């Protein structure tokens, strides 16, 4: 039997390697170029280190203090991921309920919008006053930030089912629960992944903002302290690590998305 996936494996592996490289190499080159320009400019214009640090200093400290940044980074990462899970979890539940009830949608969606438009920086200090210095305020802020995109996309996704498939299931007298699990959930996945790709970097931002208002640990805290000490090198180090975190998480989501959505027109089918 001729299975299309059982081709010559060696060339396919090489092809995939080349393809992966074509994604990685251009941005790396661009970054290197930008770094060189930045370094040159700082050295030529003799800018003091407490205004703009040269990338060489930034990278040097990052290397020597790697443990420190990893430790602080994992605190922020933890808050971001837990917050995201809670925000997405609540949003998915809400979306599932709203998809089945117009009444619920009409009563709850305005509340959700209210949550979304409330500026996080106004609410964050209150969270600290109410919930203390632990991870809870940061997790809450992160959950609030990541909640809305998942909710909105969830409602749309759960409703965007193929009419024919819906009729087919109804003709079998499928229950609402069966229809939800068998049809609505897979149909919603493209929308949900789209929302996740937006929410995941937001979750990192949420954790950092939360840390600005109270924390001794985490990269947000590092940033605040570095800023007040005019320690630009550490500030940039923290920013680099955060950026890396954001990119890494988004890439993970994209990989998961490609695996889960192999059937969707948004991905490439072998």
């Amino acid at each position, binding site marked *: 039997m001729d299975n299309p996936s059982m081709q010559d494996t060696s060339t396919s592996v090489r092809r995939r390697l080349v393809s992966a490289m074509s994604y990685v190499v251009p941005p790396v080159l661009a970054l290197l170029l930008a770094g060189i320009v930045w370094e040159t400019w700082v050295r030529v214009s003799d800018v*003091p*280190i*407490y*205004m703009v640090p040269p990338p060489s200093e930034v990278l040097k400290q990052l290397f020597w203090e790697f443990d420190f940044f990893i430790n602080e980074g994992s605190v922020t990462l933890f808050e971001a991921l837990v917050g995201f899970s809670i925000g997405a979890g609540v949003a998915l539940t809400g979306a599932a309920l709203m998809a089945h009830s117009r009444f619920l949608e009409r009563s709850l969606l305005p509340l959700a919008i209210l949550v979304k438009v409330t500026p996080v920086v106004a609410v964050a*200090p209150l969270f*600290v*006053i*109410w919930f*203390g*210095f632990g991870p809870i305020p940061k997790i809450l802020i992160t959950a609030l930030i990541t909640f809305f995109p998942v909710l909105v996309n969830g409602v749309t996704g759960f409703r965007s089912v193929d009419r024919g498939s819906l009729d087919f299931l109804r003709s079998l007298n499928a229950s609402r629960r069966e229809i939800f699990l068998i049809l609505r959930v897979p149909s919603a996945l493209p929308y949900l992944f789209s929302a996740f790709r937006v929410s995941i970097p937001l979750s990192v931002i949420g954790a950092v903002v939360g840390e600005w*208002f*109270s*924390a*001794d640990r985490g990269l947000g*805290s590092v940033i*605040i*302290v570095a*800023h*007040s*000490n*005019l*320690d630009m090198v550490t500030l940039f180090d923290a920013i680099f690590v955060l950026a890396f975190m954001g990119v890494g998480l988004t890439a993970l989501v994209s990989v998961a998305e490609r695996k889960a959505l192999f059937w969707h027109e948004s991905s490439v089918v072998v």
Partner: protein
Amino acid sequence: MDRFKKYLLWMGIGLLFAGASLGAACSDEETTARPVTFMAGFKPQANLPFVAAYVAQEKGYFTEQGLVVDIKHSTGEHLNLLMSGDVDFTTADANSVLKRRVDPELPIVAVALFGQQGQQAFVSLGESGIQTPKDWEGKTFGYKISVPPDYLAILEAAGVDRSKIQEVRVGFDPRILTEKQVDILAVFKSNEPDTLRGLGFDVTVFDAADYGVPTLGLTYITRQDMVDENADTVKRFVRATMKGLEFAFANTEETLDIIMKFAENENREHQRFMLLTEIENAASPLTDSNGLGWMTAQQWKEFQDSLLQYGALEGSTDVNLAFTDRFLEGIYDNGKLEWP
């Protein structure tokens, strides 16, 4: 072709002319009004260095000195903006000046001293039963931005074990104390104690001075290059603001009126408390003889030494570089302000 060449010629002349007049306009002519930016280190309120500038603005002292001053307020970036040149004068605590000169070696200079005694204090709720620094052990201490040197000094002076205190960074909302998320809070003597009492709480105030730790308060700071290259402007600024300070000492109500213009949303009575508390600490036998804003090398040296002794500073700097009294010398004659 001919027309084109003529056009180029006139363009060239025009550009030359524009360049020349631009250059002329940019020259450091001190006789014309010079634009200066002052950034207060916090939101508009009755901190004395802010008040001096508000009064100098409203009473026209700046104008009389030929200065056009843009008064701004900081949301945390005033030091950065001073360094980048966007701001010419700002405020800073004296211990901040010493600390920053060591790390990261900022070229900042204090030109006038408002707090002959510092405003840094620590409060706890009366109901908490905390009565001495020793009681701080086993409790939570909240500070803003960074651990205050006065705190470290008190711990040393009172023999408190720092490792037994949980230190957390907090924001500017004093409710963090009333909600008991912290037991001791770092505050400004002139500010939060009054606010907290206004909320109906009884508070205990700990002052470093009570523990034999000398403190200096707020100063005006500027960049070294301003002192070196724009000395005249600095002198005018100090003269006008010291006049404003004099006025504030003598005219509480009118000064409050001025303050309320800048701090529209604040409570007048709270601003009064702030103003009067800081005025108390701005005068001393030193200023009585030499003039308001006065400071000496000895003051700074003693201050730095005690900070070092109590482990509150990481390194020392030459105090004569950290402050200068030449502008004060230049505006006072025998303790009297020369005006205009």
